[in-house]
């Protein structure tokens, strides 16, 4: 069955079964940038934004969010037009295996959009739902701070 959804600012008909989670529906429809680390809402790898708010897509029934704006990491920026937040992740060395990166980028994006000048503690709190086993989180936090700095220095807004 196909149903219309709004993903990354485009309407798209997604093939799905009514009982499927948003994570599986997205992955089955080629949005493989949304990763599955546990399927139990505990690791944050499957984070997407629903109307701008981060959620674990493995805990959301796809059919319940048909009316919402869904944003995956590619909705923030792509390989060809990367967001400066994504560039900061690479610059800071926050990208080791990269499996948690899509979720981390979206969690950071959502934080900076609401709070462009977060303290280190606020960053740590905002990323608390996203597990990373490679970096020890240090360089991810650095990347978020670096982005906040870019926002201030260049008088930018997150978009």
């Amino acid at each position, binding site marked *: 069955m196909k149903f219309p959804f709004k993903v990354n600012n485009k309407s798209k008909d997604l093939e799905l079964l009514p009982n499927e989670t948003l994570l599986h529906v997205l992955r089955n429809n080629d949005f*493989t*940038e*949304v*990763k*599955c*680390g*546990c*399927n*139990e809402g*505990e*690791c944050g*790898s499957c984070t997407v934004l629903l109307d701008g708010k981060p959620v674990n897509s493995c805990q959301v029934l796809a059919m319940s969010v048909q009316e919402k704006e869904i944003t*995956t*990491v*590619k909705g923030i*920026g*792509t*390989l060809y037009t*990367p967001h400066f937040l*994504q*560039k900061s*992740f*690479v*610059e*800071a*060395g*926050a*990208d*080791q*295996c*990269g*499996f*948690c*990166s*899509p979720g981390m*980028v979206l969690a950071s994006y959502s934080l900076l959009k609401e709070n462009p000048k977060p303290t280190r503690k606020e*960053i*740590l*709190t905002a*990323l*608390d*739902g*996203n*597990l*990373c*086993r*490679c*970096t*020890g*989180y*240090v*360089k*991810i*936090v650095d990347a978020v701070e670096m982005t906040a700095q870019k926002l201030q220095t260049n008088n930018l807004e997150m978009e």
Partner: protein
Amino acid sequence: MFKYVNQPIEKIDGLALVTGEEKYTDDFSFNNMLYVSVLHSGYAYAKIIDIDDSEARTMHGVVEILSYKNVNRILYTTAGQGYPEPSPYDTLLFGKTMRFVGDNVCAVAAESKEIADEALKKIKVTYKELKPILNLEKSEGSSIIIHKDDGAFPKIPVFYDAKKNIASKVEANVGDFDSAFKKSSRKIELDFYCSYGSHCAIEPHASVSYLDVRGRLVIISTTQVPFHVRRIVSHVAEIPVSKIRVIKPRLGGGFGGKQEILLEPIVALMTWRTKRPAKLVYSRREVFKSTRCRHEYQTKVSVGYEADGKINALHLDALENAGGYGSHALTVLANAGSKTLPLLNKIENLRFTGMGVYTNLPVGGAYRGYGATESYPAYAQAIDMVCEDCGLDIVEYYKKWCIKSGETSAIFQALGEGKEGVAMTIGSTSLVECLDEGAKLSDWYEKRKLYGPNSDFNKGKRLKRGIGMVAMMQGSAIPEIDMASAYIKMNDDGSFNLNVGATDLGTGSDTVLAQIASEVLDTPVESFIVYSSDTDFTPFDTGAYASSTTYLSGQAVRKCVEEIKKQILKVGAEMLSLSVDEVELNDSRVTAKENIKEEVSFADICQYSLYQKNQFQIQATASHISPKSPPPFAVHFIEIEVDTFTGIIKVLNYTATVDCGTPINPVTAEGQVEGAIVNGLSYALFENYYFSPHGKMLNDTFGKYGVYTAFDIPPMKVKLIKSYEETGPYGAKSISEININGALPGIANAFYNATGKRLHSGPFAPEYVLKVLSEK
């Protein structure tokens, strides 16, 4: 000075990773693909009397079922190690005996994952339950025999006694421990227990396979060891090596957990039999229960010493729980000794005894740290106790007694990986500088003065503070065993294909290897198109383990590029009508030494060599093995606060100084240190396997298992202190493993500094800490 090496160059795959463009194993799907589910044993120890899959086979959408009934009985080891493997051949892909909760019963391939899962429920398995061994101390010589008459055997000539449940045994003696211990005026003994641990790479294990247009089997897999996968799948699935291609795409972390051949033979057989693509992705719970983990260890250190702190004799004894199968049981055990005992090399009488025993608990395997994580808590606490007893500063003590450049330890030769080790003299070390600098960065001396169990600061207080430290060594590759190789060819525009068997599991080794190549050729990193880990298109490499990639694969790349350099200089000289001695490399050009303006670009050189005169492909290949395994060194200083009411240990500051030789990429090297420290902290304070009385792991989710999150990390100071390792590429040694080993002993020593009590069992969870605090 270096231009590309020792520079913080951004990872070549970085942008593709953070934009979600890179593909991991589960991101590959194929038309007509089958989905595989595996039925795992719910019993710790049982015989299968019968499997009745008749109902499942008639289900709509079920295509194939594999079990002992239709898969040949071929013993192997799941350990992805060099051949012949030092781990015993004691495992069957599908056997009739279940040896731990999580062992393979059978597997179903179906048109969808849902059908495959549903089919598992329809398979009727009749078990005969057996009494299991669920305690590592009760295994040796038990009347319950875990590998009884199943033909299990060691592939190499080593001690192995399945009748006594002994999977591995190691002993090494230097000098005469017994008499030196006896004669010593002071003696201490300390035991330490290390819990099970899971790697928790965020990407779960997955494999996808298909047949290519010529009927060859292609396996895409989450593996650290693609060449070992090819060899072992060939053995287990009875498919010739020539018919198998293994590809490692991006990997979502490994830490040793993906050095095991577990899923690949299952999808391989499914595809080989059905001629259809097949995919198997483990759930997180399956990863916890059914894959491999850190071995459980009981260690004991005995030290005989004098009042001035001189240690006469030291004995490290280790009892290892191999679990149901002996994967890495021998080599992890040997490393428990070989990565600790040489550190204080002036101790004349050393003894290492170790035994790995089978139990009916989850199977151990390779895990970052590889034995050293398990042995340092006892070893380093014992050194702390000696210093405490003799009134010596432990930093000065390590400086005095630690191994120095030009020195050796008899342990290097006495303890190898399944055979004798390799004698080695230390070349590079900045350990003494690491000790000094770490003490400075952590305010060691001020804080040691301030804290202490009887200090004004701590006496009578609920919250007590302490600072502890630990010095460590590891290795870089397995000497005279591990081999790496590289292939390079030059393209028309002056770019290069760099093909390496080395496996980037998220560490950034693709980038690091390109940096090494850049340095040789004086051309930017972007000039290298790096392709790694594909058994058809890259030359052999043992894989990403034993802290080997930068040191070993890096040197293979360097050798290979040196060859390319010769060819480029030769063509360049010919084009400039000069001799080879009269030209040099200069920023992607060949220039005349006398006159830099006489130049030809790399692009012109390649076009000349391909199209114009004396044509040939500028290309080279090189292999490298190492005659030694130069240790990286690290010193960790940890400051903690113990809440004596709740038992919670809070880490206030973590300082690490590290000698990895030349850090090829200081940012990714720092990332290795920080990641390992946090993994070590998580293991030291939270992580454990909790079992039911029947041997079933109860906390098999991230939430219940307790992985550190961003919110848990303490303030950290990491400093890389260079040395120059002559045998490594541009002076590099390894860095990936060593820093996971510091948290347990460092916190334990800090705990003593705060409370005057010794910790004997990890993790240092509140209930255990309270128990220790309440002891008289």
